[in-house]
């Protein structure tokens, strides 16, 4: 099977409200930079383009169509779209390259969440007959999950605060982060609960922004003469939609994906996990079989800034950039979709 190289990754700053900038204006700067990094001009210089976005963030059917307008697709391009995080766009591009229909691909994800009420909007991800009429939002379902873990004795509220304190601290070195700084566990625990047992800081912020990536066969990356990280394994799994049918304190789908992607085949120096709520990082760490020697979310993770539909791709990009810079040799990235970690993707990246 053809090895795949991640050659370039760029993300915009996470901001609470991008104001008058529209989606095309969020996408264009990251596309320009990601192509410049490779030394190519346009979307016509790669064989395939794939994006991830969500119509409901924009409040319009076929929101991705405007995204395509940002590419300058004249002459026409080979292009596809997933209504998922762009990490799954990466997956679709991997299939395309492995089947030999492409040697290179441009991927991007974007979301402008600020105009709506994101947690409430995402309540419409649920079963349309039995669940979404209850307007159960994403914070509430995460709170149910955290409560189950606390009741189980799996975690304490201090464990959750520790995740947040570390995220804020790590984010200080991430120029794109929205929330950063030094804050102690005690200070965090002194904050009031927002939606018990979650405090506001246990929940990721709402961010506008976009990210983009260029991947290629290793041969093509060498031809470009750019340093790259190798995607050694990638897999994604989904589990039951019904909270009552799942053990919310575990992530079985992540466990299966981690095994299929080969997480345990070597040491994991860094893991970037898409954990929108603090307790979910603890679930994921266990599901991925990560030990205390793995640095988790050195970027601050999505607790420091969560660009919907791009954050999963950005986790992969964060690990890739550390490998490209020579900081680490092997790392793991994770992306999620749905309420309470229903669907998960795991990628393993290595240096040459």
């Amino acid at each position: 099977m053809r090895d795949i190289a991640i050659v370039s990754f760029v993300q915009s700053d996470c901001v609470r409200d991008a104001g008058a900038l529209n989606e095309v204006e969020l996408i264009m700067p990251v596309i320009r930079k990601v192509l410049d990094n490779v030394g190519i001009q346009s979307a016509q210089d790669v064989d395939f383009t794939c994006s991830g976005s969500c119509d409901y963030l924009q409040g319009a059917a076929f929101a991705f169509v405007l995204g395509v307008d940002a590419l300058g697709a004249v002459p026409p391009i080979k292009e596809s779209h997933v209504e998922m995080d762009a990490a799954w766009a990466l997956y679709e591009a991997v299939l395309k390259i492995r089947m030999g229909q492409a040697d290179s691909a441009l991927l991007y994800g974007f979301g402008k969440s600020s105009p709506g009420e994101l947690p409430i909007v995402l309540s419409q991800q649920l079963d349309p007959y039995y669940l979404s009429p209850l307007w159960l939002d994403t914070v509430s379902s995460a709170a149910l999950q955290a409560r189950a873990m606390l009741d189980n004795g799996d975690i304490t509220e201090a464990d959750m605060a520790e995740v947040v304190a570390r995220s804020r601290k790590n984010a200080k070195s991430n120029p794109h982060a929205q929330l950063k700084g030094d804050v102690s566990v005690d200070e965090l625990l002194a904050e009031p609960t927002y939606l018990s047992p979650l405090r506001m800081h246990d929940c990721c912020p709402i961010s506008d922004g976009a990210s983009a990536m260029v991947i290629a066969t290793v041969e093509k990356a060498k031809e470009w003469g750019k340093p790259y990280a190798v995607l050694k394994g990638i897999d994604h799994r989904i589990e039951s939609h019904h909270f009552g049918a799942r053990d919310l304190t575990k992530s079985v789908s992540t466990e299966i994906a981690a095994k299929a992607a080969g997480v345990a085949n070597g040491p994991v120096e860094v893991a970037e996990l898409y954990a929108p709520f603090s307790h979910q990082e603890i679930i994921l760490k266990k599901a991925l079989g990560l030990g205390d020697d793995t640095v988790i979310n050195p970027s601050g993770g999505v607790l420091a800034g969560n660009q919907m539909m791009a954050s999963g791709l950005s986790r992969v990009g964060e690990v890739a950039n550390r490998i490209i810079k020579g900081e680490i040799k092997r790392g793991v990235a994770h992306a999620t979709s749905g309420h309470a970690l229903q669907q998960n993707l795991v990628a393993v990246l290595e240096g040459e």
Partner: protein
Amino acid sequence: MAELAAVVGIGQTKYQTKHKTVSIAGLVRDAALKALQDAELTWDDIDAVIVGKAPDMFEGMIMPELYLTDALGCNGKPMLRVHTAGSVGGSTAIVAASYVQSGMFKRILTVTYEKQSESNAMWALSNAQPFSVHLNAGAGGFFAPIIREYMRRTNAPSDAGIKVAVKDRLHGARNPLAHLQLPNITMKEVEDSPMLWEPLRFLESCPSSDGACALVISNEELAKQSPKKPAWIRGTAMRSEPTMYAGREEVSPQAGIDCAKDVYAQAGITNPRKDLDCAEVYVPFSWYEPMWLENLGFAEKGEGWKLTMEGATSLDENGDIPWNCSGGVLSSNPIGASGMIRFAEAARQVRGDAGDHQVDGAKLALGHAYGGGAQFFAMWVVGSEKA
């Protein structure tokens, strides 16, 4: 370089205005089970599921694949959701095929659907956006001016659209799954139906349907063991261009021309009218048959309407290149599934399993889908033989 892949199971629901007795999950599961039965397989034989649907706003469900995983036996397996425009059914089949063609999976299930009776397409397509011109027109109003430009350029007779409307409904009357069953439809009846968007009349437009379509696609080894004849995937292609740009050729978009050339090259087709035995082409409004006949290279520029008028695309007139033997989009239109139905019906033809709308001895067939303002294209060619 790609692994060989083939369609080994096809499942379709009946297409109708309302499926009152099933939920959305029930509708999708019905098509999936029929595809599994057709391939004599069970849920355990499936390695991954690919769901296609667009857009989420039609039924008001965000990322419906999250909810549909239980109904599609996908728990613990990979689930991918494809969302392109009206071409989504075709794009989904192509992405699903790539699961197998990449060598990463042996056998997958792919499903697309629309439950228009639980949705409001006209609303979802026409809501106002800041800083954009509000086009309160739906699809018919968008395409009508482009059709008028085609008529102006080609001097096509005004009844070419009417002829397509009749022809596809007569085809649909041979297909028990087709939504519209109009075995006695006449040119006069179409002509007398209300004008909706000049020159498109009510009976020259697609219906609004509920329905789902599913395919099981497997690798070469498993396809050879399959109980029924496989439809071998001989080529797949997708192309996109922007909605509007200076000099855009809207009557015959460049993306469609490029996409067809790509898929023909993969399948070894040099003369589509001669080399292909039939085609299932996305024709939601009657005039798009002559327009696509030219765009896809079946006719010279300006002459697509001649093939239509001489009956070349009609099964009932023993045409040499029948188009939309299933009745096409003009007979059934569950939007999210319509593209995949074209791909599935092309596969049925080369499997020799198309019932009363079978083209005798069909060996090579085209499946085609388009979407947006005719700027997104997805096509595949399937054959009764591997090469």
